């Protein structure tokens, strides 16, 4: 039974030591440790929640992006078509304009050529006339150089003149 009787001294010191340990650890160990554990747990929970939210948002953004892409593709096609039309129109217009212009130039050129040809022809005629007059003069001068020739010629002329 000796073993079952508690000693006062041991009880006393145990109580003091236990209470000291309790208060010191309570203040300097358990409080920060439990706080850190709580923080970590809430931090992890927060992170998971944030990740979930982000995932959802990402999904939303993805679908939105796809929609935008589709829209953009449609717009691009429309723009391309429009551009093609405009191009065709411009080309056609340009072609027509070029044709008329070319025709006009062609006509002008022809007219000018005609004019110049006529002028040249007139000049050549004049020249030829002059040349013929000169040559006739020279020939006359030579044929009528002598008095006899002049007389014969005058006779001829006089014979031609038929005095009715």
């Amino acid at each position: 039974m000796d073993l079952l009787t508690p000693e006062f001294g041991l009880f006393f010191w145990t109580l003091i030591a236990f209470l000291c340990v309790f208060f010191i650890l309570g203040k300097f160990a358990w409080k920060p440790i439990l706080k850190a554990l709580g923080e970590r747990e809430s931090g992890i929970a927060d992170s998971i929640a944030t990740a979930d939210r982000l995932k959802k948002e990402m999904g939303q953004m993805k679908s939105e992006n796809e929609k935008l892409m589709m829209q953009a593709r449609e717009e691009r096609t429309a723009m391309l078509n429009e551009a093609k039309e405009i191009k065709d129109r411009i080309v056609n217009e340009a072609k027509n304009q070029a044709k008329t212009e070319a025709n006009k130039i062609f006509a002008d050129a022809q007219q000018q050529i005609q004019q110049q040809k006529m002028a040249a022809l007139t000049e050549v005629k004049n020249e030829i006339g002059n040349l013929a007059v000169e040559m006739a003069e020279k020939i006359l001068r030579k044929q009528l150089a002598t008095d006899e020739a002049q007389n014969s010629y005058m006779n001829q002329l006089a014979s031609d003149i038929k005095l009715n």
Partner: protein
Amino acid sequence: MMCKRVFSLFLLALSLLAGNAAFAQQEELPGAKQAKEGFNATEVIFGHIADSHEWHLFDLNGKPVAMPLPVIIYKPGAGLEMFSSAHFEEWEKMEDGKTKRSGSYNGYHLEKNMKEKLIADDGSKIYDISITKNILSMLISVVLLLWLMMSVAKKYQTKGSLTAPSGMQNAMESVIIFMRDEVAKPNLGHKYKKYMPLILTVFFFIWINNMLGLLPGGANFTGNIAVTLCLSVVAFIVMIVNANKHFWSHLLNPPGVPLGIKFLLVPIEIISLFIKPVALTIRLFANMLAGHIVILSVISMIFIFGFLSKVAGIGFVPVSLVFAIFMFFLELLVAAIQAFIFANLTAVFIGQAIEDIHHHHENGQEYNVTNEEIVA
């Protein structure tokens, strides 16, 4: 758990039988005892498990090698006195043949039977608050515990709460989380945070002391009833102080119970209230004491058989060692399990005292059921 306790009781019984056998042997051969001092297993075992005013390490050439510890005495009216336990010398047997008495110093002497007691020579009332072996062991454990937990706490502060724990911090964290999630939360409900420091301190204080007690030459601190009584008194006070109105009303005036039964039930309830700390006290004390006794008994068997015959002693060495090693492993487990049980029961008792109204209705129904059963 139950199975294990039955097993250790069985071992205890076995070892006590062995001890008695040795004792009987000595009594049968008084002549031989005179010539050759026999091995007294009881004295050795109780010398190891009992508290002492010196820290006995080993015997060298028949002389004990021990560390003297300070003796502190408070004598009402005379104040405090303090001196070294080395002054208590010249042990001699008293008339009854079992008790040993040391020489007097300063008007005090030690008497050692199963326990060592400090007694004033003139028989006056004194309070012995010496730093005994158990207390020194406890102080070492306190220093260890403080250092360990503070360093863990510091790590949390330096590394921040969101980095993964490492090393000792990791080891302690898993234990702390276990205590929080498996002990505090289920038993204490949403108010668990308030009691976490108590439960953690109780658990680690008991655990580290259990472990230190297992070291060779260590003190049997948690296997001492003064210690377990102190811890359960603390738990009991916390329970009583925090008990709510519903706890008291259900204790002193159980609802839905006829008056006649109340006279029977209320005393039982009050007794059960006081049995709780007693159960706590005895459970830890008996478990740790039994474990120490079993290990020491198993080791003592070598010497008991050795004194019978040298061959028997040597032949018993392997058996004893295997058994002792097995017991050591078991005790390592028990050290943690008993600390856990103490903390868990503390939480359970506090939890009962602070239970919410909601739960009390269920209790009321239980009372009704028992009432009907009694009537039936």
